[in-house]
């Protein structure tokens, strides 16, 4: 008796629509669009198709980094090494092709493999040796940075400049350039690839055992372990997923920008992490959104493309990125506080 019946059993306070509008990933998408139109209004030179291409181009590798690191952050971890690991992988893969003359497919596989190896080291140290993620990935960050310098001799490394060159076909996955009558038309195939990957990874994060366990252990490690789940294994997997995406990011960068300078990659982790946090992934772990991370990193790309057009150079971009990261982290912290 009493009034202990369950009203509105599967229902919730808000309708799905209201809930979606209130979600952080929606806010990130809105912020991305607003930012785009702010630049569009402020700078006439921002309005062309080439700017969109530019935004997309820098979004591919950032989005891969963002998607990968979202899995790591979902476990309550962090990866400070992903920027230098991406650089190191791109340098090594590029040299295998251009200096050692290995087939492109080998170069691409090694690029991904080297990133996975570094991530596996991270994952092992964090999941099995139980080092704090911050410390472990700071170590591998330096290792990767040093390793990149050793193999590249501090020289620039070149990947094929055109898709038509031998070994250049992989570039078509990101961009197909059709030239005619003195004008080049770029078809952003990478956008399709990216959207497909986002959909797949989003499903993996929210609809599979792997994703659910990663989120659970990020939310409460011990309670998840005591629910009979092999938490170490799934924590390790999160780092491996991250590694695959760091490798893909290296390939995406190589496909678009061709030449890799020594030291490339350092600092990119901040963009990826900031993108994820802006998109609603909580640094405390347990809450994550792949779509959010996508919108977050694209927002960073819009910023990167837009600032020079209103006369602010890269030092401004750095400065503003810092502010955006702080704002995103404040939102994240407040969200956690509200829930305490």
């Amino acid at each position: 008796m009493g009034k202990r019946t369950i009203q509105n059993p599967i229902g919730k306070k808000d309708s799905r629509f209201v809930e979606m509008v209130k979600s952080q990933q929606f806010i990130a998408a809105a912020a991305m669009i607003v930012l785009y139109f702010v630049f569009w209004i402020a700078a006439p030179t921002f309005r062309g198709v080439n700017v969109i291409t530019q935004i997309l181009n820098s979004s591919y590798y950032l989005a891969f980094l963002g998607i990968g690191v979202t899995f790591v952050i979902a476990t309550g971890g962090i990866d400070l090494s992903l920027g230098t690991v991406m650089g190191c992988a791109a340098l090594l893969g590029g040299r295998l092709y251009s200096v050692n003359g290995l087939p492109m497919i080998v170069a691409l596989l090694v690029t991904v493999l080297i990133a996975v190896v570094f991530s596996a080291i991270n994952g092992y140290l964090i999941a099995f040796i139980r080092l704090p993620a911050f410390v472990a990935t700071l170590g591998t960050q330096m290792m990767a940075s040093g390793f990149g310098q050793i193999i590249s001799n501090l020289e620039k490394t070149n990947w094929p400049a055109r898709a038509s060159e031998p070994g250049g076909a992989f570039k078509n996955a990101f961009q197909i350039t059709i030239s005619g009558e003195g004008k080049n038309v770029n078809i952003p195939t990478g956008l399709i690839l990216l959207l497909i990957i986002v959909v797949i990874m989003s499903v993996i994060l929210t609809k599979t055992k792997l994703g659910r366990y990663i989120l659970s252990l990020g939310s409460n490690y011990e309670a998840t372990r005591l629910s009979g789940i092999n938490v170490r294994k799934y924590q390790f997997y999160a780092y491996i997923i991250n590694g695959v995406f760091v490798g893909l990011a290296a390939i995406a960068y190589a496909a678009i920008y061709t030449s890799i300078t020594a030291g490339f990659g350092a600092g990119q982790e901040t963009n990826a992490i900031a993108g994820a946090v802006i998109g609603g992934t909580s640094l405390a772990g347990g809450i994550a959104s792949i779509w959010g991370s996508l919108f977050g990193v694209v927002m960073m790309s819009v910023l990167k493309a837009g600032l020079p057009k209103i006369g602010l150079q890269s030092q401004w971009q750095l400065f503003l990125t810092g502010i955006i990261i702080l704002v995103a982290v404040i939102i994240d912290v407040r969200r956690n506080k509200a829930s305490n």
Partner: protein
Amino acid sequence: MTELLEMKNVNKAFSGVQALSDVQFHLRHGEVHAFMGENGAGKSTLMKILTGVYQRDTGEVLLEGKAVEYANTAEAMADGVIIVHQELNMMGDLTVYENIFIGRESMNGFLINDRDNVKRARELFEVIGVSIDPYAKVDSLTVGQQQMVEIAKAVSHDAKIVVFDEPTSALTQAEINELFTIIDDLKSKGIGIIYITHRMDEVFQISDRITVLRDGEYVGTVNTADTDKDELISMMVGRELTEEVKLASQVADDAEVVLEVENLSAGRMVKDVSFKLRKGEILGVSGLMGAGRTEMARLIYGAEQPESGTIKLHGEEVKIKSTEEAVAMGIGYLSEDRRRYGVLVEKNVAENTVLPSIEKYISKGLINDRSANKDALEYNKVVRTKMTGIEQVVRTLSGGNQQKVVLAKWLLRDSEILIFDEPTRGIDVGAKAEIYEIMQELADEGKSIIMISSEMQEILRMSDRIVVMCEGNVTATLPIEGATQEEILSYAMMRKEV
């Protein structure tokens, strides 16, 4: 003389759900006022409003005749209104003394005078008569010890009102007695005590008056001397409940032994533990806090590794190297500390409930949320979780209802052997009776249950046999027939000479 506290017509809603409607509460100087009601009735919410954790929607709160409304707990504390929370929230990585004096440390100029803080902590513990190392990290303490630290913290304030929200659910009998001495002491100083509990015996032991809440509504206030248990129960639940004890074991002596533990040892907490669990049996494990019962359970569940000893399932020796293996072998474990080890507070009821059972709902690699949610709802209905729906975030459930979610989770997992560590901690009388029924049904279906409990009535009511532990040793294995509280207690305090 004006009343110490008057709360009138207090209303509070959480995102559209009315948690309190027109509730009143009165407290006199030097009174112990028990506050009762079912899980989710709104007790904690009203007290959080009093102490500035939440703000009321409407209503009036008068402290010594003066209208007050606190924006945060610091303001309430400054007025001498202090709460010891149901769900402890302490800084686990800090030491005991740091937790007690945070925000009001003794200072030496700019530096914290640690020596003095430690000294003050020691004095406090002396006053309340417990021995806890001020330098210990809070995370290293048991729930009971943490509770004592919280109480010490409350006592250290110059209090007018102290609210205890289910303080004894994690305390041993000895600690409870200590607490009652402290409460008597506070009372004699004219301090008003509000005491939330689900335990009847305590209410009659220490309270002067009792206020009952049901479904967020005020039911009434009675003098403890003028009422009895039955009246209170019907005020709370709106119906009569009967209390029983188990008179005889319901399991045959020659029933199959599903689990056999032999000479299990690990560290100082578990020493040479042996016992058998039969099919369909509820094996009560009694003992004082720190007897090693939880540690023993964690060894069986693979959460920790034993140093020596064997575990046999259906007569075959097994090595359980992880919780994953334990669950796969059909063992489930419900932890005594739901906050730390039981629930994912930021996840919703459905996700919590299906967590160990997700495999069941996977088809073609994807989780079938629809059927998972359906089962989550069904099992939470069985244990009668009071919630707005299975998508309610667990953090926003009342303490007892969080416990029910954990129960639902293990019911759904359908393990063959269930280890319930303090299964009814923080659960109201009505729901408790229902949970007992469910446990008995499970046993009747052939499931075997190890029930660790510090509540004597629970042990005597549910067990088919009783294992008593003291300081890591099994000191007795008793049949339920003829078992008495005194006998169990004497074994629970029987130290083995080494």
